[in-house]
């Protein structure tokens, strides 16, 4: 079959051939290339510098925390209570344990409620679910100081909901729980939604009860994601100061009673770090190092556990 070239549509009016500007374009391309390549290389350098600027604070922060906190760390530091000001040899054992207790209590409240709410979002569409999701979005952005003050208003101030009348670790845990709640809901919902619906439908088609399906099928497949999400929420809560400032308020004592003020590492850092005395600031650095290490361990553990569970599932 031979090739014919019919007149192109509209060719009668327009007769300019291709190539009229070719030389001009070629010239401009060649002449601008040096500048363009230079700009491109410069841009790479500038953006690399931006990366350095992004990372420099992290490096500086970790370096200083380790540098100044390291020689405060000792067996005594980690296992003793604080001593009165001026008396050497104190430690932050109460703050470490206090942090763990506060966060554990908070998680005990936030995780069940959060996962249950996530199950709700999973099973229903409609306006209530939409409102819930909107609420989660809003709650994520609420400053943690506001959560702490609300907890104070409800649980400590006279006339509040369940007012104890005095500062307590429990109110701090409630504040932490409210802080963690939207994170748990979001992470759980996305972990469970990622399970392919075919798995769920297969279970339901066999006549298995919905709750059983969720338990055996969905929860099991979503477990790695759930664990990661919740551990990350815990890692976030452990480092929070503002919710505890006016609730658990901190303590010098090894107080494990949640109905009394409880010590926590972030509070130690805040109280001691803002004092003009080097000895106090040293304690703050040491505590900051311990806190940083704990957060790091939790974040790494979150991903490691997820990876382990993923492998086991295969």
């Amino acid at each position, binding site marked *: 079959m031979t090739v014919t070239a019919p007149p192109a549509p509209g060719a009668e009016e327009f007769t300019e051939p291709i190539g009229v500007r070719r030389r001009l374009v070629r010239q401009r*391309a060649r002449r601008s290339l040096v500048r*363009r*390549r230079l*700009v*491109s290389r*410069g841009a790479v350098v500038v*953006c*690399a510098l*931006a*990366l350095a*600027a*992004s*990372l420099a604070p*992290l490096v*500086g*922060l970790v370096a*200083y*925390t380790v540098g100044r906190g390291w020689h405060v760390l000792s067996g005594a530091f980690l296992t003793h209570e604080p001593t009165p000001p001026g008396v050497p040899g104190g430690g932050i054992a109460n703050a470490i344990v206090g942090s763990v207790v506060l966060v554990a209590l908070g998680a005990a409240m936030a995780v*069940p409620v*959060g996962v*249950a*709410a996530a199950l*709700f979002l999973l*099973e229903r569409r409609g306006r209530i679910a939409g*409102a819930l999701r*909107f*609420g*989660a*979005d*809003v*709650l*994520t*952005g*609420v*400053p943690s*100081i*506001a959560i702490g*003050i*609300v907890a104070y*208003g*409800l649980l400590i101030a006279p006339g509040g*909901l369940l007012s104890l009348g005095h500062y307590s670790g429990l109110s701090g845990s409630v504040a932490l729980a409210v802080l963690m709640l939207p994170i748990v809901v979001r992470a759980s919902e996305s972990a469970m939604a990622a399970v392919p619906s075919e798995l769920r439908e297969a279970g339901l088609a066999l006549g298995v*009860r919905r*709750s059983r399906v*969720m338990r055996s099928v969905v929860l099991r497949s979503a477990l790695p994601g759930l664990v990661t999400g919740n551990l990350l929420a815990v890692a976030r809560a452990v*480092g*929070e*100061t*503002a919710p505890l*400032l*006016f609730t658990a308020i901190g303590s010098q004592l090894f107080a494990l009673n949640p109905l009394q003020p409880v010590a926590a590492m*972030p509070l130690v850092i*805040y109280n001691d*770090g*803002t004092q003009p005395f080097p000895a106090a*600031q040293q304690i*703050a*650095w040491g505590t900051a190092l311990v*806190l940083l290490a704990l*957060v790091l361990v939790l974040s790494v553990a979150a991903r490691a556990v997820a990876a382990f569970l993923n492998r086991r599932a295969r």
Partner: protein
Amino acid sequence: MTTLLEEVPPPLAPVPGVAEALGRRRRRPGGRLYAALRWGGALVFGAVVVALVATLVSGSSQAFGHFGLSLLWSDHYSPAKDQYPTGVFIVGTLITTAVALVLAVVVGVATAAFLSELAPRVVAAPLSVAVDLIAAVPSIVVGLWGLLVLTPAFSHHVEPFLKTIPVLEWFFHGAALGPSMLLAGVVLAVMIVPTVVALSRSAMTAVAVADREAARALGATRWQVVRTAVIPGARTGIEASLTLAMGRAMGETIAVAMVIGNSYTVPHSLLAPGATLGSAIINNFGEAAPGLDRSSVVALVLVLVLITALVNVGGQLLLRARTRSARR
């Protein structure tokens, strides 16, 4: 009559026992516990949100009743009359957030461009993880570092240097005494850069390879590809990241409180100390006397929550709009 099967299946007959077992299961009140669990979770969640709003509104009602809405732009600080310069705090919040955003946009978007387009692939992944790690650092630790390390560094070196730059005179005059708005802005920038980088980077990598190839095939240099195809394509995602970063900066209280200096007049320069809503709340709530005093501080909390909620919801909507348009 031939068949392909190796053996002929027997005719169907009911297996004893199965029917009874299934019937027993169906007769149990199935799923009601599960439904109660779900609804319980939803209701508790809803109750928390409602309680939050209700407590703030009721706690601040006394102050709003006493001072009226003019509370919002007052610059009058009078401890005796339990009156806080809310307007000054709002201005402080806006200024520090603006400084943080300017720094974070420039550094964050450029970093995202580097990680997404310009860096060798081997290096890009671990570096992204490193940038994300900043977000995991507790704000109290950032605040401590800001207070004990950055403050002396800024007042002795950075700020005097900035004063020598002729063009920026207007921003940087006055004595560099230590805590300052600039420092607060820088600390905030450090904390929000990971948000900007992560979301911008994801928006950039989502730009189709086809668009990049189109630019490449026309003779674009690497940077030209980024400028013509990637950044315009990622614009909605970048805007969303900036809005969310702004919300985060506005809500950050502890780190700012430690470096801003707690001064209750409108600052005339970035080198002067100031106050934000967050820092004012932290510094005043503890000693506020119950009654009008405390109510005024709770009013500050309410204002802060409203502003951050508005900005955050805006950012979430932008993010959702971006994923919707990408799917189209």
